[in-house]
């Protein structure tokens, strides 16, 4: 009997994978539901004996089985999109059944945990330090240093918390990992717990990911005996973007409003319920098992450039022809990612801009596509890597409107704790509207009030309005408690710098 492999990743499901799977089952095939290879434009991707067919619809079944389908892409593993990748975190993607403990063990699962538990906790931390792994959530803080801080803290209780509140538009690697290889994340957390001396862990996942929630719940139950005495609990967010910030995430787990805490104290010293807590992103924790196998740490350290070590699961999103997950060593250029690997825009029109790093990342013009994917190189260009999402826009994008959206999004999602973010975001929307409308004639209703004696009554020139916008950006960047308010200036400033014409009437 023919065995057909079809992904049950949420994106494949959204593209109709269940109907295709049912059609193959009706045709007498054995259907195995596996994780996604990450070639999203080909989903639902059908695999039979290593050969791929996609994007498939139920009507393709007869042609695929008789070998006459025009959707054949040849051997999947030889596909150029996969050939160029170096997959560590996503080594199992497309190859294993996500909730099969058998598949997991057969592909090297639990080996790192067994080895780590045979080592002294301090030696595990040393391996993570040696690997050069930096936090994949966006800030890029060295994971080993964070672990060391928690490990050295003296406290009766410590926690490991996985930040799976992947709210950035243009990112989906956490979701794919949780849905496709949940045991790897759990193994990484168990290793972290051993390294720092924690007995309990939480995964905080956003409510927008129902499939990831279901997979994680099942995986936690299945893996419980493998990771015991470490105990793991899933917590579901409630639609607040800001809860991706680590301190508001901790408040949310504690049953509070997801407001940001002032730092210090660092969560590593006073985190969940006031106890020392490791808070790491999904991709950070999922990278751990590869680092803890023999030779893993030095392999990780040998990859990448400068201080950006190892591989990054990059997400190609937005208006891109070949979107999906591309894991590779740091150092790759945007030109290769967008134009060669991504194949340019899905619409076939010229690329105008890409936003790297989610809603708080800078818009980068094609003139800067030579930038190497590297934390410091991006920082030097007033941009950020963030969580590794790349959203492509074609020449129809209105950068003024996108800058306005950045403020609007910040206003909608601000936790309200600090003033620059809470009020500055709304002022930013108003200011960009005014600039795009060509300025204003008079003071507005509030400015005209007699008690607003410091407010300006006379009209502002465009130059003055732009200066005011820059002032606002500076206040938000330097005065906000967290990255939501602090990084909103990145998309705004970059849009204004590279596409000033989009801010004119």
């Amino acid at each position: 009997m023919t065995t057909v492999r079809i992904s049950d990743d949420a994106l494949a499901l959204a593209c109709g994978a269940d109907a295709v799977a049912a059609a193959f089952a009706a045709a007498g095939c054995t259907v195995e539901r596996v994780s996604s290879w990450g070639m999203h434009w080909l989903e639902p991707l059908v695999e039979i004996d290593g050969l791929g067919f996609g994007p498939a619809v139920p009507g393709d079944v007869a042609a695929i089985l008789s070998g006459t389908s025009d959707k054949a892409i040849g051997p999947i593993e030889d596909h150029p999109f996969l050939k160029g990748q170096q997959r560590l975190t996503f080594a199992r993607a497309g190859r294993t059944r996500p909730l099969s403990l058998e598949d997991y063990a057969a592909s090297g699962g639990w080996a790192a945990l067994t080895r780590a538990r045979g080592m002294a906790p301090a030696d595990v931390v040393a391996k993570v330090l040696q690997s050069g792994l930096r936090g994949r959530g966006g800030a890029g803080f060295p994971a080993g240093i964070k672990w060391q801080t928690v490990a050295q803290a003296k406290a009766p209780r410590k926690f490991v918390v996985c930040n799976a509140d992947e709210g950035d538009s243009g990112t989906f690697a956490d979701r794919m990992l949780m849905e496709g290889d949940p045991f790897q994340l759990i193994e990484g957390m168990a290793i972290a717990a051993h390294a720092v001396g924690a007995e309990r862990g939480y995964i905080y996942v956003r409510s927008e990911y129902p499939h990831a929630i279901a997979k994680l719940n099942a995986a936690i139950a299945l893996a419980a005996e493998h990771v015991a005495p470490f105990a793991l609990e899933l917590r579901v967010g409630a639609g607040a973007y800001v809860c991706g910030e680590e301190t508001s995430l901790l408040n949310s787990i504690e049953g509070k409003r997801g407001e940001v805490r002032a730092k210090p104290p660092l969560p590593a010293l006073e985190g969940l319920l006031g106890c020392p807590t490791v808070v790491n992103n999904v991709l950070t924790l999922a990278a751990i098992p590869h680092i803890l196998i023999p030779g893993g740490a030095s392999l990780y350290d040998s990859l990448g450039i400068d201080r950006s070590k190892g591989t990054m699961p990059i997400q190609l999103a937005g208006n891109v022809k070949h979107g999906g997950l591309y894991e590779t060593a740091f150092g790759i250029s945007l030109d290769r990612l967008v134009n060669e690997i991504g194949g340019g825009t899905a619409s076939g029109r010229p690329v105008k801009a890409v936003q790297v790093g989610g809603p708080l990342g800078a818009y980068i013009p094609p003139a800067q596509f030579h930038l190497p994917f590297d934390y410091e190189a991006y920082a030097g260009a007033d941009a950020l890597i963030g969580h590794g999402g790349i959203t492509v826009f074609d020449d129809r994008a209105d950068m003024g409107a996108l800058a306005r959206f950045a403020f609007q999004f910040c206003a909608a999602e601000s936790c309200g704790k600090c003033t620059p973010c809470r009020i500055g975001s709304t002022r930013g929307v108003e200011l960009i509207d005014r600039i795009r409308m060509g300025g204003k004639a008079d003071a507005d209703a509030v400015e005209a009030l007699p008690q607003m004696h410091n407010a300006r009554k006379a009209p502002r020139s465009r130059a003055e309005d732009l200066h005011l916008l820059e002032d606002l950006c500076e206040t938000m960047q330097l005065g906000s408690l967290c990255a939501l308010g602090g990084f909103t200036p990145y998309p705004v400033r970059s849009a204004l710098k590279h596409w000033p014409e989009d801010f004119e009437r």
Partner: protein
Amino acid sequence: MSRPSLTAILADFAPEQAALLPILHEVQAAFGCVDAQAEAAIAAHLNLSRAEVHGVVSFYHDFTATADPRPCVELCRAEACQARGVEALVAAAEAAAGSRVRVKTVYCLGLCSSGPAARTGDTLHARLDEAALTALVTSL
């Protein structure tokens, strides 16, 4: 299907504040909202003030004070779906929805390579064009 009573939901949770979000999710799912009466009962169970519970309920987008019985399409309007043209579909979706269906804006469903994307219940939809989105709205 009978919905669980508030008392039955609360009985499943230890009386500690860390249980608040899981409780609120269950109450919202069972009743379509977390109203003032529910807030008071939850507060009593967790030994919190009603103000504390209300502060949490009103903070998160997923919890609402009143129930909206209409079917709902959650449409992603974040950057990646904007890049794939979601804004041009909004008017048609809202016209098809009228007052019968709720079209709710959400930011990111994690399908960013294949937008425009939407969610109905726990079902996801990708690669939407105007025809597919209006058909989805009409089908609810």
